[in-house]
């Protein structure tokens, strides 16, 4: 299964968390996960974890049997600068527009590591803050009926020490 080449079409997200930061005491972490949707087994025999059940429920509108997490990264997006997170062959950048919107920029990372902007989406920050989920995805260009998705949520709090 050539999901790796399909990851070329994966997104770069811009993460922003200024208003999140104030609500969360200065630190705002978002989690971006690159997920592979398929009816088949794990791609290329890799040992990938399944997407957690709660998020899998958010994908109930889709009918794939399996959702494998290819890469997951938590990023502190407090501050006004765009923060970048790397999801394998995807890059994620987030930015606060200053108008209550989270601006998400999608990038394709080519084999030379260059970022190619694909598109920009926006999401009200409040929705994420209240437990919402932003999903940006597309069909795999190489594998019939498989798809890639970048799932963005607020990262769960770190366990107390």
């Amino acid at each position: 299964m050539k999901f790796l080449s399909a990851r070329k079409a994966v997104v770069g997200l811009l993460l922003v968390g200024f208003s999140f930061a104030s609500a969360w005491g200065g630190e705002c972490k978002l989690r971006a996960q690159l997920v592979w949707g398929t009816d088949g087994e794990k791609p290329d025999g890799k040992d990938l974890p399944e997407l957690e059940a709660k998020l899998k429920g958010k994908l109930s509108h889709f009918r794939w049997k399996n959702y494998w997490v290819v890469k997951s990264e938590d990023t502190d997006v407090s501050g006004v600068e765009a923060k970048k997170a790397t999801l394998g062959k995807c890059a994620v950048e987030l930015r606060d527009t200053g108008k209550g919107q989270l601006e998400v920029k999608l990038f394709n990372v080519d084999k030379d590591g260059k970022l190619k902007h694909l598109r920009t989406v926006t999401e009200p920050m409040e929705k994420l803050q209240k437990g919402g989920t932003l999903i940006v995805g597309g069909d795999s260009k190489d594998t019939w009926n498989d798809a890639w998705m970048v799932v963005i949520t607020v990262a769960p709090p770190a366990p107390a020490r």
Partner: protein
Amino acid sequence: MTATLRPDYLSADDVQLVAWSKGGDTDAFEQLVHRHRDKIYARAMIMMRNEDEAMDFSQEAWVKGWQRLHQFQGDSSFATWMTRIVINVCLDELRKKKRMRAESIEEMDEESGGVERQMPVQLTNPTEGLESTEVRKRIDEALGKLSEAHRTVIMLHEFEGLEYKDVAKRVGISIGTVMSRLFYARRRLASLLQGLKRERIQ
């Protein structure tokens, strides 16, 4: 006054008809349609196995052919170019209907080998002794017993002459899947044709 001579569409070759068509001559394009319509329709019938759909999609393919004439550069014959279009139209429709996906579980069983994988290879020509029209009819019947996924790879590799990688790209599957589907389809067709042959003799 000198009468305007009507182009001789009947004796013009495809290259000339395409050139005229590119200039907006719909009569020239109609001659191309008439010349190749059976082949294009046949491709659609092989894939869709339904007369109404084959009529619908073959016509849709001709419309696309007209719209995309400027893209035809003569790298292949016009007929080959049109067959590629009608196959793509049919593949798009099959994807929409998700038939391939619905059959995926069955295919996985087939691709794991099934009974045919264990059968001895038939060296004899299963169509030996049959007339050409009968051969084509038998093959068509046998193709109808394959799944759409297997029929598609046979169509693209055997009838259209596409290499494995081009079949894979066109269908959106891996080369490995092309190979396994092709292997199964050939063995299944051979066994079907053998069976049909025995039926005829009896």
